[in-house]
């Protein structure tokens, strides 16, 4: 079954078409990197796939279901611009909360496992508002992976991460890919993303101008796609 199928999706903000005629599919186990300048429509597209915002026209199917179906949401992990954890709660309270919302059998155990995996076990009972930026980012990563999602939607996941958080994120993303997870991420951090991406797509002014398997040239020259297709 196709993991993500985007069919002729348009999105309008007022009269302005932020996305135009976007169609593509992502097979299970693929890692698609959405590239494009600021304002190209990457975040808008990810928000539609995540079910945060409806498409103006067209449709999105995730594992054969609509993006807003409860079962789809159970299979999806989202990491957006915000860390999406509560400052007033402790790290373990945050993760246990989301574990319960995702219906995990033992939310507290899952929370402890992910705190350990992200190096936060010593501050498990500390309030998030007292965390450093790097710790908050690692907690956000733990929150996104907590329920063992089959599809990961990441919006600029490497932006403003410290070195340790980048290492944690790359490690869990690699593990995810090995387990057959599907990843769709928008990014400006080409070097980090190209190590993981199996496919790349270039967006320009709301259109998908190119989509292909990640060219080998992009490992040594991450800007290769822009130079070749991004006459923007």
């Amino acid at each position, binding site marked *: 079954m196709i993991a993500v199928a985007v069919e002729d999706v348009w999105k309008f903000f007022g009269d302005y078409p932020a996305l135009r005629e976007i169609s593509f599919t992502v097979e299970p186990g693929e890692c698609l990197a959405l590239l494009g300048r600021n304002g190209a429509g990457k975040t808008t597209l990810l928000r539609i796939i*995540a*079910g*945060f*915002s*409806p498409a103006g026209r067209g449709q999105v199917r995730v594992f054969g279901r609509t993006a*807003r179906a*409860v*079962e789809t*949401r*159970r299979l*999806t992990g*989202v990491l*957006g*611009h*915000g*860390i*999406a*954890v*509560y*400052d*007033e*709660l402790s790290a373990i*309270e945050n993760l246990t*909360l*989301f574990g*319960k*919302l*995702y*219906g995990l059998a033992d939310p507290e155990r899952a929370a402890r496992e992910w705190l350990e995996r992200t190096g936060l076990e010593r501050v498990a009972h500390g*309030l998030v508002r007292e965390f450093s930026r790097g710790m908050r980012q690692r907690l956000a990563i733990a*929150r996104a992976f907590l329920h063992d999602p089959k599809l990961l939607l990441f919006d600029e996941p490497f932006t403003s991460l410290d070195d340790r958080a980048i290492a944690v994120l790359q490690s869990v993303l690699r593990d995810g890919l090995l387990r057959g997870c599907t990843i769709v991420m928008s990014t400006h951090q080409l070097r980090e993303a190209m190590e993981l991406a199996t496919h790349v797509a270039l967006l320009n002014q709301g259109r998908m101008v190119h989509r292909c398997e990640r060219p080998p040239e992009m490992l040594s020259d991450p800007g290769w796609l822009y130079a070749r297709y991004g006459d923007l």
Partner: protein
Amino acid sequence: MAAWRLVLIVAHKDLRAELRTKEAINSSFSFALVILLLFSFAFDPTAEVTREISGGLLWIAFAFAGALILNRSFAREQPNDCLDALIAAPVPSAALFLGKALANWLLLLGVEAFCFPVFGIFYNIRWTRQFWPLLLVVVLGTWGFTLIGTMFSALTVNIRLREVMLPLLVYTVMTPCLLAAMQATSLLLAGEPLAGEAAVWLRFLIGFDVIFTSLSLILVETVLAG
């Protein structure tokens, strides 16, 4: 998972966050207290006047103080984009909404529980004479208010002038609920039994709550996810 369990999880999260910061409940309680005290000192009403205006006075205090709690309801989700994480979770929007409404309802009932003794002391009214009927009216009136307030809190969460828009929208829609609650409260505080006119207003409150609970549950998915 049973929807009610999800409702309780969301409500518990909101209550825990609020009781840690006490941002809304402190300001709400202080505001209600100030209104009750100012009216008491400014007008020095006689016993008869007090009985006539008691319902109106109490519900004005609850409505203004409640707006402070309701304003925080979805605004609490804004820092760190927490609302996105809630919307992304496999929780029916109706359960999410009911959880937040339940937390607001309990917080507002808490403020009201403090206000009644203060009201009794400053206005020299024995408000416990019709305790159970009064409790029923307060519970139903507060639920109607909370329901509408929580829905508009979700609608206005991304508006820049949220603090201004929310009361404008809420007070307009909740006028019938407020009116019924005020009338029933005044009658009960005057010592009348829950029969006749008071019973009519109570039935009105029940109808209002049933209609707006149903409407909210139908519309909330559109409000939260477009």
